């Protein structure tokens, strides 16, 4: 009896492993489907220009989506990520183009990048402090910082630039945007940020804490994990990643703009949620977000090429998020039931 019992257990475990792979990465199926759809039906989809295009758009979305993943792992939200983009772009642009430093391009670039990162840090600290110390729900805090941030960016642009955006950014800075022969620079930056986020999440103590706090904050607190510090660092990381995104986008557009990234929030949320980071925290990771970003970028690009109006794209993305959350719920229940059967 012992042997057969052992064999059937082994089969069940193998079956469960196969099911688990699909469960962990349901997004693979969707990416494949939408990619196939692109190749077969969408004209010009597979031209090399479009592929380069897709890559650049993927880099744009990936950096800030990785930052947002940190927040989503604790089932929080960060609406102010987009206003980090415009505030950092405007202030960075001012330093690089109009301030006395503008005469020395390299120095101006370094100062510009430093200020932009500082802005991201500042937003992260304000959000983190309010959520952790004042114990406010994260979406209210980030909603307030978003409104104030946008107002500041528009005001600063009008008062200092006199118009919405200014060009004249130093050449070393524009390299970051991947213009001309420096095509690979933003790709490298986004991959570096992706592997940095992946490294933090999977290899460091902070990453373990983030997953524990996201799943069960009580148990984590009792196990000695500093819950408050972990949540605070999550918001700071999201702010920094948003700042890096601001740098890449400003360089890509070769202009410091006060309206940078105003419609990106839907793309960010759909990339993270559709990717597979569960809405209730604790599950998911940056790799799922990478796959989610690929899915969203291909979806948008395909719909653009087919000529779908922009409002229907918003509708389709909304439905995609809804579908992802429903699947996440069913998987969680399925994962629970298969385990129950295994246990009996």
């Amino acid at each position, binding site marked *: 009896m012992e042997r057969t019992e052992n064999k059937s257990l082994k089969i069940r475990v193998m079956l469960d492993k196969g099911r688990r792979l699909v469960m962990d990465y349901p997004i*693979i199926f969707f990416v494949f489907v939408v990619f196939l759809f692109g*190749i077969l039906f969408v004209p010009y989809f*597979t031209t090399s220009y479009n*592929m380069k295009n897709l890559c650049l758009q993927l880099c744009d979305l990936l950096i800030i989506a990785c930052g947002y993943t940190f927040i989503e792992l604790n089932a929080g939200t960060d609406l102010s990520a987009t206003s980090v983009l415009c505030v950092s772009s405007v202030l960075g642009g001012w330093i690089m183009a109009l301030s006395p430093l503008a005469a020395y391009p390299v120095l101006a670039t370094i100062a510009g990048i430093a200020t932009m990162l500082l802005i991201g840090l500042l937003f992260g600290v304000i959000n983190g402090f309010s959520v952790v110390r004042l114990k406010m729900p994260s979406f209210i805090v980030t909603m307030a910082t978003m409104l104030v941030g946008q107002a500041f960016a528009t005001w600063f642009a009008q008062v200092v630039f006199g118009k919405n955006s200014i*060009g004249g950014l130093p050449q070393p800075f524009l390299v970051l945007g991947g213009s001309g022969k420096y095509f690979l620079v933003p790709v490298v930056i986004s991959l570096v940020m992706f592997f940095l986020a992946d490294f933090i999440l999977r290899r460091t103590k902070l990453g373990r804490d983030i997953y524990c706090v996201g799943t069960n904050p009580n148990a984590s607190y009792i196990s000695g994990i500093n819950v408050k510090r972990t949540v605070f660092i999550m918001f700071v990381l999201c702010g920094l990643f948003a700042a890096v995104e601001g740098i890449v986008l400003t360089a890509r557009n070769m202009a410091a703009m006060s*309206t940078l990234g105003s419609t990106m929030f839907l793309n960010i949320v759909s990339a993270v949620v559709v990717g597979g980071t569960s809405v209730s925290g604790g599950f998911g990771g940056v790799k799922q977000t990478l796959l989610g970003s690929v899915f969203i970028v291909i979806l948008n690009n395909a719909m653009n090429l087919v000529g779908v109006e922009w409002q229907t794209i918003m509708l389709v993305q909304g439905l995609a998020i809804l579908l992802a959350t429903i699947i996440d719920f069913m998987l969680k229940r399925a994962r629970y039931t298969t385990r129950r059967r295994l246990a009996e």
Partner: protein
Amino acid sequence: MKKRILAAMLVLALLVSGLFAQGSKEAADDGQLRFGAAISFITGYYSAMIDGIYEAGEDLGIEIVLLNAESDSTKQNQQMENLIAQQVDAIICNPEDSVAIAASVQKAMDAGIPVVMVDRIVDGATPSKMIINNSYDLAYQLVEEYTKMSDCENLEAPLKTLVMVGSMADSYAVNCLNAMRDAINDYPEYYQLVAEIPGDWNQDTALKGLQNALSANPDIDLILTPSDMYIPCIESALDQIGCWKKIGEEGHVRVMSMDGDVNGLQAIKDGYTEADAVIDAVLCGRWGVEYAYNILQGNEVEDGATIDLPGFIVNYQNFDETAPNAYSYGDLT
């Protein structure tokens, strides 16, 4: 480890398949031309321009691909890149931000795709043609011409003016605001600026702002608005305090607007508003397509890189002569 390889492999597949599949999918080249139209934001004025573009498209048998950037220049740049990817034959571009669009315009021109700028210039690249209306001069002209009209001769006190504002993030709105401010300063004996009402191109904010301003200073003589989009709000706010009266009736408040949209011209026709600066949006759209078509056909039209779109002022006195060549004259009742 397995998951990381999985993800990296996928991104690689994306790139490689692009290169291989280079030849497999040729453009649906059945001779029909395809133009891309990248529009910044759809308010009353731009929807008229889109109608113009579609009209010209039908006349010349050109398929139009319309993309709206929702006033986000990053999205507009991506859309421009998508248009270039589609190897459209020409691009009519109404940039959300004239500096940011320079990169994509340059890329399109290098790819041999003629780019015609409509309504706004591009600063940092040389497109094939620029059809612009100088919104600043037109707004200035609107305010200036009114001083020459008959009912400004025997003014005892300068007209108390309210200026409504679009969204400060939109260069068209900012140009109109600056023009109106300068014009009012240049004619102190005719105009006195009382308040500026932020609308953010959102009718609810505009209505409430206008109502607040009217309740703060009830004795207003003139309202200036950068777009006919606000005419319904003005009508509703003035009607509230009983000032939505025909010209000449007691309690009438002068209203001057821009765009030359249906609401604006209808109000002039019914005698409620004084003047409307018509930017022939449909003509602008139509010219965009025609010029692109001509450049494609090679018959260069030598009339300079920038063409000034004729903006003209329709007011209640010269309505019958000037109004017909406004684009929305057709659907007036």
